[in-house]
């Protein structure tokens, strides 16, 4: 028996090589997928950015023309960038403040925590076309409930999604409906702050505001930071609502970057130009998260980290 075991071992692989073999077998689904669905397409789309391609005619390399057109001749490109940035500059801070405020309220040991959490969190879970279809009617200028609520205060509501001035603000208001997702994360952050800190501060006579600015806020900055990064990436992917509710209009007022990318690629069949827009999107996401990360040492506080 023993000899068989030895012979088997000698013929087979050594233990560490056997382990390595298993490792690669196990991760092979991802590895194949990575080559086939990520790395390969990335290289291809990088080539596409220098080409003209419409699925019907053979691909034609045109050098930097796509990029030159994007930066110097395409007003809609700049416009879609402006729309997307306006949305993030308003919606992200507003969502941050509101989500944090809700989390603070829930953290104040109110009765029925789970019920409140459910109510506020649910809208951020239900998502997609159904929500867009619903809000499309909520904003209806004639019978929508937003204008109905405004009428309680004697305000005649605007045309919202049908008005070039109010369509983007409408989508920003709608985004606040999903503020519960951030709230959950902030709440977890708040609950991890040791209560002894607050007790000590209270005994020392710190006011509520002082406790917030000196204990809560610094300790929660990593979470805010995380949400900010996710939020920035998210707005560059913003698509469904803009497509279903306004389709970029009226007068391109809600032409989000991702929608413009979709229009170029799948509506006008400009796959080369669409690829260039996609690559620029990648660069922008990298730069912005890079900026947030680099600025983080100035305002994000990590416990256990020594400040210089």
């Amino acid at each position, binding site marked *: 028996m023993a000899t068989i075991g030895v012979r088997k071992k000698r013929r087979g692989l050594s233990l560490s090589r056997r382990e390595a073999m*298993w490792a690669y077998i196990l*991760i092979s689904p991802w590895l194949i997928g990575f080559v086939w669905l990520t790395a390969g397409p990335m290289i291809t789309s990088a080539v596409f950015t220098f080409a003209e391609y419409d699925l019907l005619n053979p691909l034609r390399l045109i050098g930097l023309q796509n990029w030159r057109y994007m930066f110097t001749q395409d007003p809609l490109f700049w416009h879609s960038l402006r729309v997307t940035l306006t949305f993030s500059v308003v919606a992200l801070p507003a969502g941050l403040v509101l989500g944090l405020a809700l989390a603070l*309220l829930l953290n104040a040991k109110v*009765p029925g925590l789970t019920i409140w959490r*459910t109510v506020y969190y649910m809208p951020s879970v239900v998502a997609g076309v159904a929500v867009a279809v619903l809000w499309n009617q909520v904003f209806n200028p004639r019978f929508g*409930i937003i204008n109905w609520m405004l009428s309680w205060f004697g305000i005649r509501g605007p045309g919202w999604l049908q008005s070039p001035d109010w369509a983007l603000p409408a989508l920003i208001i709608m985004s606040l409906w999903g503020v519960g997702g951030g709230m959950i994360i902030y709440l977890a952050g708040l609950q991890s702050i040791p209560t002894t800190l607050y007790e000590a501060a209270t005994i020392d006579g710190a006011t509520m505001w002082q406790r917030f600015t000196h204990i809560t806020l610094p300790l929660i900055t990593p979470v805010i930071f995380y949400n900010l990064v996710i939020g920035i990436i998210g707005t560059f992917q913003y698509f469904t609502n803009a497509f*279903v509710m306004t389709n970029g209009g009226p007068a391109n007022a809600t032409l989000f970057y991702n929608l413009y990318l979709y229009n170029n690629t799948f509506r006008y069949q400009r796959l080369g130009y669409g690829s260039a827009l996609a690559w620029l999107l*990648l660069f922008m996401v*990298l730069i912005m998260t890079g900026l947030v990360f680099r600025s983080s040492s100035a305002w994000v506080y990590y416990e256990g980290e020594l400040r210089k």
Partner: protein
Amino acid sequence: MSALTSRMQSIRLQRLTGQILALILLTVGAIVVMIPLVWMVSTSLKSRSTSTEFPPKWIPMDAAKAEIDGRDYFIYRIPVNGEMRDLALLRKLGPQGTFVNPENPDEQYQLEVQTGERLYTVNLHWENYPNAMTEVPFGTYIKNSLTFVGVSTVGVLLSCTLVAYGFARFRARGLGVLFLILLSTIMLPSQVTLIPQFVLFRKLGWYDTLLPLLVPAFFANAWDVFLLRQFFMSIPLEMDEAARIDGCGPLGNLWHIILPQSFPALTTVAIFHSLWAWNEFFLPLIYLQTRERFTVSIGLQQFNSLYGRNLPGLMAASAVTLLPTVIIFFLAQRLFIQGVVISGIKG
């Protein structure tokens, strides 16, 4: 001592007023948050004509009508000689109207219409739901969506479990670098790979089939691999060793040791992925062309653009689309909250 107790008392009082204030704010906020969903359900049960009334009624009601000589007339609650009566409005001439007792059509009155009020009765139009479901082939959409959800969730669970197990429990040259590459793909916007994938899947003849939505799921994704790996790593290594001594190979170890302990993580992945697939709009939009292949999300979008005037039907279809999400949310809320906190929000 007394100074300290009074100080503690004032703190307690402060805390109490704070709680009351918090409760008031939370209640107001909760009402605002819930209004759209309540309005959706309420509108889905209204008749088409009352659905666009302003101001809206929360309880679906139709104007009460009475049939007199084969024709319908609105019923008004109107004072007649100081007594409130429910009468049908037969004719209107300027401010005056001819009212008649529905039970006894010969009993007629000339009254000022403005003094009365149109009568409404609660009427829930449940038929809006089956109507909306048949106006477009919604059953087919649901079937397609369930295929998408079911098959791709199985694919994700299978592939991500294997890959996560490989990264969590094995050592090999290059594995660390590969894991970093995997992590970095989380940051990669899908648009960068989308267009060549589209061209490729078209060439493979997968355009207008569910295959572009199903097949990639079997090749693992960074988020779920990461989540599962973290979980697998929290399972003590001693158990693996015990299993190995008992003669378990790598797959046996995965099956007998790792998986039985990983149900929370696997459920989290399954639920998050199912919800994502059910709600996913972009991929079905670019890949599916024929109505019979539509998923619920694009079916609903098409309903919205074609039958947008049928507001109750539209809201009924939306409610049906949202219902599975809401049910899963209530069943698995704890997992949700943990999942979000652990991994951030997927998709």
